[in-house]
């Protein structure tokens, strides 16, 4: 493996990141952006995490921990979201859909509309795709020019932003749904501090329309408490750059 010279890798920052010692959202986003495109640093991070885990001396947890987990996990089988290329779900559904994929698409679009209603109530940044508060109708084409792709720290694509016929749309393609009480939130990283671009729901809805201020070039999506946060506080799901809008 070719490892780039020291100056090309933020090694000190990466070490602090492994310890969760970076509390500034912008600093974290910069590192995560680097990680998204740097396999050697992803490996370094994994090695550092493994080293740190050796410092943990196991202790038996109280019985109440498992009791609570048991109560929470006795429900339905967890659904795993498989990353799909934007647009392929709609195209496949129109040709020869499997029942599961067809159901997921329709449920997702219907849920997206519901999420948009909730998001409009939550803040003015989220708009309906048509500007009137409604989401993409079932069967509507979401084709459009890709403005940018957001990737996770491991390089996995998690979302893409598309310039649709009725405004920008975020397509969550590679994220697992969040547990109850959590919600994805989108941020602009162009200013000195991250600025909220609105809520994206819990990941069960594949598409959400967003209002992108003109000139937005760097964005991120983080895992936040339901209702959103004034500043990023949870795990960064993905970061990416956008073409000028």
């Amino acid at each position, binding site marked *: 493996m070719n490892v780039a010279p020291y100056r090309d890798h933020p*090694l*000190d*920052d*990466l*070490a*602090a990141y*492994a*310890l*969760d*010692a*970076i*509390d*500034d959202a912008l600093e974290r986003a910069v590192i995560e952006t680097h990680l998204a495109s740097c396999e050697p640093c*992803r490996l370094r991070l*994994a*090695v*550092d*995490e*493994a*080293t*740190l*885990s*050796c*410092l*943990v*001396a*196991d*202790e*038996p*947890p*109280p*019985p*109440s*921990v*498992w*009791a*609570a*987990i*048991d109560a*929470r*996990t*006795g429900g*339905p*089988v*967890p659904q*795993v*979201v498989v990353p799909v290329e934007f647009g392929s779900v709609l195209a496949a559904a129109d040709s020869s859909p499997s029942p599961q994929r067809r159901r997921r698409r329709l449920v997702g679009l219907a849920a997206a509309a519901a999420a948009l209603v909730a998001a409009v109530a939550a803040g003015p940044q989220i708009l309906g795709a048509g500007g009137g508060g409604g989401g993409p109708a079932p069967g509507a084409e979401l084709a459009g020019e890709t403005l940018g792709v957001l990737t996770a720290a*491991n390089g996995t694509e998690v979302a893409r932003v598309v310039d649709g016929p009725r405004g920008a749309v975020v397509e969550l393609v590679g994220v*697992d*749904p969040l*547990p109850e009480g959590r919600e994805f939130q989108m941020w602009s990283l162009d200013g000195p501090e991250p600025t909220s671009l609105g809520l994206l729901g819990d990941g069960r809805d594949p598409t959400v329309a967003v209002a992108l201020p003109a000139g937005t070039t760097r964005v991120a999506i983080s895992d936040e408490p339901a209702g959103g946060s004034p500043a990023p*506080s*949870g*795990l960064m799901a993905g970061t990416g750059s956008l073409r000028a809008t």
Partner: protein
Amino acid sequence: MTTVPGNSAALPTTRSRGRVGTTRRAGTALSDLSDDDLIRAVTAGEQPALGEIYRRYAGAVWAVAKRVCNDRVLAEDVSQTVFTDLWRRPGRFDPTRGRLRPWLVAQAHARAVDTVRSETARQRRQDREGHLAPVAEPDVESAVHTAALSDDVRKAVDQLRDDERQAIVLSYFGGHSYRETAEMLGAPEGTVKTRIRRGLLVLRQALEAQGVTP
């Protein structure tokens, strides 16, 4: 019924709910399965597989959560969330990136740090520290922690310089940012980050020399 080693919590081996045995041959004990096999079973909705993962690694998850949160209630919440998240989103673990125990510990640590950084938790923690430990001395913090480690790991930790050990312990187990750590140690922020990096390198090499693997 099986019992989590060192834990009075009982874990059933078979359950009336959740699918069992859909991803492994009949008669294969859960304890014989690899971590990757268990993850596949969890993905298929086999709750007993989650119980086996819990049996193996809950001790580490609980230990790091309790150490960082310094609060049993918060640590319980963090530990529960780590395993329920694994149940709901097993695909987040990428076996090509590393092993399950370090990943779970990293998840627990990140959640614990998020928890203690929230304002409510911070206040509770400050109140608690105000009663129990008014002055957080880095050396005391290090000593308390390393006393619980195995001999091999303690020998590896002993290879660290004091300033490296303090930086790592304060940041990792204290849940402090590198800026807070720098302030506590009276050192420049960049220096603290360099000490953390160097310390991690020394630790890794020393652990490897001791034959300790995560």
